[in-house]
């Protein structure tokens, strides 16, 4: 293009290794971030089926208050495994592993992450963790919930020990990924991509990586202590020998609250990319959205004890944790308002991805508001340990992280595979998911406030005084199958589209971040020439702010024929 940019590109880096040969190096022990992202995606999806099946078994158990479907013992291991698998083998590999790995290096114009070998190691710890965790079915499964509070978890020795070993593997993986992504964003941004020109998904991934790098170490420490307690009888948590059971809860939640932000920040990033593309509006309040991710990540470290208000902590300790938890509402609210303002005055295209993003806005806001209810100490003393909590965090995880993930899959699938997903199936899946989400998790809020405790294999006593509980639990059970159907439909859609989907081309949505300037799927090494960046990727009436691109791309990208007919009403040019 220009002489100056050629000089610049030489200066950056200019020798490209040949792509690896052979199946094993190419698809199994690959160091390519895109292949690793796919590996995370398939592992995460596999465990999503398992965790989802456990959830359906839980719901079938609660269809009838007497709880005769499973034995109490089996039920306990089901909710434990559902939570454990859902948190560590589904959401974390999908949102940081798959999305972060695939999108972030492409968005910053990098050829890979900073430490590709470390990235491969991070991934391979996941199947190892899965094998360790599921080997517990041959001995004794963990039973004490995904939080595994001692002393009760110590009564399920082998199960708890295997659980600790598995989650420590994931902890190590998360720490390494956090370090890797942090260094990638700091060091490998294309020339000209200043911090305030970075795409917002990359900002969110950066904030997530910081949390992963710092918080996960506390989890590993907590689980190591629990492991020693259960295997070698070390009395960390035994009050009779000078230990403290509540100590574990502090260490566990020091990670596990920030972990909620590990789930949700990438989803925030996805929404901040999807909304501008389909409203054809610059993202409203770029800096507010970017910096509020950091603010949430930092404040997220000082709220963990809000999970422990009734656990026996000093009343005075409750106050700062309550107030800081309220304070997180401010940056989160600013994000939601900025997204609303992005919709306002846009020209909205209702693709599947956009529908998921709109669903996210409503479901996540609801989950955020019930979070404030839980942060208020006196109110929490009523809600804690009830179905209100279960409803709240499923709105955040399923209504936030999973909806964000689905928005991302439907948005980046054409880039990752070169094929379009079927929009009709996608939209049907969206409505099934929203109906399922509402029907399953909304009634939990009032059941919890009425007094229904969580982790009950049978609620005969509660149904005796609250006849409506049976009705609402049945509604929840039916609705859960709607969500299952939605995920099944997504799977069918993915398989069908890989085989028969329309060819996507480079930029079917007319998006402006760097990944849409290269081929779909991206070639090995992503960018033959490292692009040079002159501005933010959200100004639809300006020419693309890049030079030194590999291809001659349209300076004003618009949705292409591949993304029609569905986003375009009849008569559109």
């Amino acid at each position: 293009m220009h002489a100056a940019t050629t000089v610049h590109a030489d200066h950056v880096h200019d020798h490209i290794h040949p792509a690896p040969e052979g199946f094993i190096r190419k698809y199994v022990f690959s160091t390519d971030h895109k292949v690793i992202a796919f590996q995370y995606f398939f592992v995460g999806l596999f465990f999503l089926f398992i965790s989802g099946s456990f959830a359906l078994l839980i719901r079938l158990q609660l269809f009838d208050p007497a709880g005769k479907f499973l034995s109490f013992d089996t039920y306990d291991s089901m909710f434990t495994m559902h939570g454990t698998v859902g948190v560590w083998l589904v959401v974390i590999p999908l949102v940081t592993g798959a999305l972060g790995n695939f999108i972030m290096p492409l968005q910053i114009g990098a050829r890979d992450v900073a430490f590709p070998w470390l990235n491969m190691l991070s991934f391979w710890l996941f199947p190892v963790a899965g094998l360790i965790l599921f080997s517990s079915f041959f001995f004794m499964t963990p039973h004490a919930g995904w939080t595994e509070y001692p002393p009760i978890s110590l009564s399920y020795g082998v199960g708890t020990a295997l659980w600790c070993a598995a989650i420590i593997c994931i902890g190590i993986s998360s720490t390494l990924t956090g370090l890797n992504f942090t260094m990638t964003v700091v060091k490998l941004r294309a020339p000209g991509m200043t911090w305030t020109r970075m795409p917002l998904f990359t900002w969110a991934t950066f904030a997530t990586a910081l949390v992963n790098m710092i918080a996960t170490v506390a989890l590993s420490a907590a689980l190591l202590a629990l492991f020693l307690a259960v295997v070698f009888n070390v009395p960390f948590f035994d009050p009779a020998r000078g230990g403290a059971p509540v100590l574990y809860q502090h260490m566990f939640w020091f990670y596990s609250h920030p972990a909620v932000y590990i789930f949700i920040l990438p989803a925030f990033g996805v929404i901040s990319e999807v909304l501008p593309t389909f409203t054809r509006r610059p993202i409203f309040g770029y800096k507010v959205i970017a910096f509020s991710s950091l603010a949430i990540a930092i404040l997220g470290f000082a709220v963990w004890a809000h999970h422990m208000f009734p656990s026996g902590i000093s009343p005075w300790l409750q106050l700062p944790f309550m107030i800081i938890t309220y304070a997180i509402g401010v940056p989160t609210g600013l994000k939601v308002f900025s997204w609303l303002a992005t919709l306002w005055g846009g020209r909205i295209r209702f693709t599947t991805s956009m529908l998921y993003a709109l669903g996210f806005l409503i479901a996540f806001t609801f989950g955020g508001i019930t979070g404030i209810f839980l942060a208020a100490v006196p109110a929490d003393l009523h809600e804690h340990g009830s179905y209100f909590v279960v409803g709240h965090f499923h709105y955040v995880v399923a209504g936030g992280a999973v909806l964000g993930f689905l928005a991302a899959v439907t948005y980046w699938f054409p880039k990752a595979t070169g094929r379009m997903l079927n929009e009709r199936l996608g939209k049907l899946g969206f409505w099934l998911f929203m109906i399922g989400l509402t029907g399953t998790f909304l009634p939990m809020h009032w059941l919890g406030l009425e007094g229904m405790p969580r982790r009950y294999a049978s609620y005969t006593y509660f149904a005796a005084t609250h006849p409506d509980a049976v009705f609402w639990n049945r509604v929840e059970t039916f609705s859960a199958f709607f969500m299952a159907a939605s995920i099944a439909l997504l799977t069918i859609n993915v398989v069908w589209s890989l085989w028969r989907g329309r060819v996507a081309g480079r930029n079917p949505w007319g998006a402006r971040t760097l990944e849409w300037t290269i081929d779909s799927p991206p070639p090995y090494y992503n960018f033959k020439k490292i692009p040079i960046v002159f501005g933010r990727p959200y100004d639809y009436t300006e020419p693309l702010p890049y030079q030194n691109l590999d291809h001659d791309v349209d300076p004003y990208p618009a949705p292409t024929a591949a993304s029609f007919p569905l986003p375009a009403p009849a008569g559109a040019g």
Partner: protein
Amino acid sequence: MSTKPQMIEPKGMGPGFWPVMIGLTILNVAIAAVILYTPLDWILPEEWNPVADRAADIDMLFKFMGVFGSAIMVYVAGFVLYAAVAFRRRAGEPSDSVGVQLHDAPKLEFWWTVIPTALLIVLVVLTVQVWHRIQFGTVAPALTTEVVAHQFNFEIRYPDWQGSVFSPPGEMHLPVGKPVRILVTSADVIHQFWVPEFRLKAAAVPGLVQNLNLTPIRTGTFDIACSEYCGVNHSKMQGKVVVESPEAFERWLAGERAHATTAASVSLGGGDAAAGKTLFAQKCAVCHAVAPFEQKIVGPGLLHLTDDPKHPKLVDGKPPTAANIAEILQNGYTGDIGAMPNRQANGLSDKDIANLVAYLASLK
């Protein structure tokens, strides 16, 4: 190669901002009226006619959060749905049509930062007030009860009437209108003591005693539920609170104490020390070592229970005779050292007590 896209720009705040704002505000006022002026018993048990002093305070907080939380939810959802309709791309619009190219609106952003922050500050003030009343604002309790959680029941005790047998286990009786202190702890794993109608919950943690205060203000019978996973029968771990008139409470108490005196004498003849030793390992060794007094686990070592010159008396100040040891095993004891569960909690039969006493007397 396409050209600069066509921008379709609405005027002012855009079409419909104020009508939508006013419509949603009317809806919010209606929701607030429902929350504030109608019974919410269908979500918050006994909200309209509270059964404990703290419940009214906590429900006030719920209603405050309910009014403003639902308002924010309605505005967000309302504007999302309205925008989805009003700003959809119309038939016939060019495929590259773009929306308003606006990056910021400082005045708007100022208000949507300031208003929620101000609401949160009001919420902080309100919650801190309620929190302070609940945690510290108690008058001297007229009655103290103790809850010792076990897998899988709540043992209820009244330390003011030491030695009484209260039955059935897991039933707490409280006189209406009297301030009461409830001390909560656990004998094994972590449980939670929850009475939804009282808006009252505390974890029962081994090695820790939590202090709850309330005044029941209306009579009735309510469920106690365990709300922390505590093992396979977690979902079967419930108890009852019976709030009754002071007269009924006194009658119940008198009945229980009469029952206690008649139940006092267990026949200790034929106690088998060997069987007692086995039983001790199962039931007692968690808290008591067979070692000198000073080697405490939870309770003291019991090696020289009957012949320790430094500790010539039992914890209740009586001489260490077989009958007095049996009395503690039957009724439990709460003193400076801690809480010894009673026979219901430990599941001890008359025969078990006789065997244990025989074994303890044999330790020298």
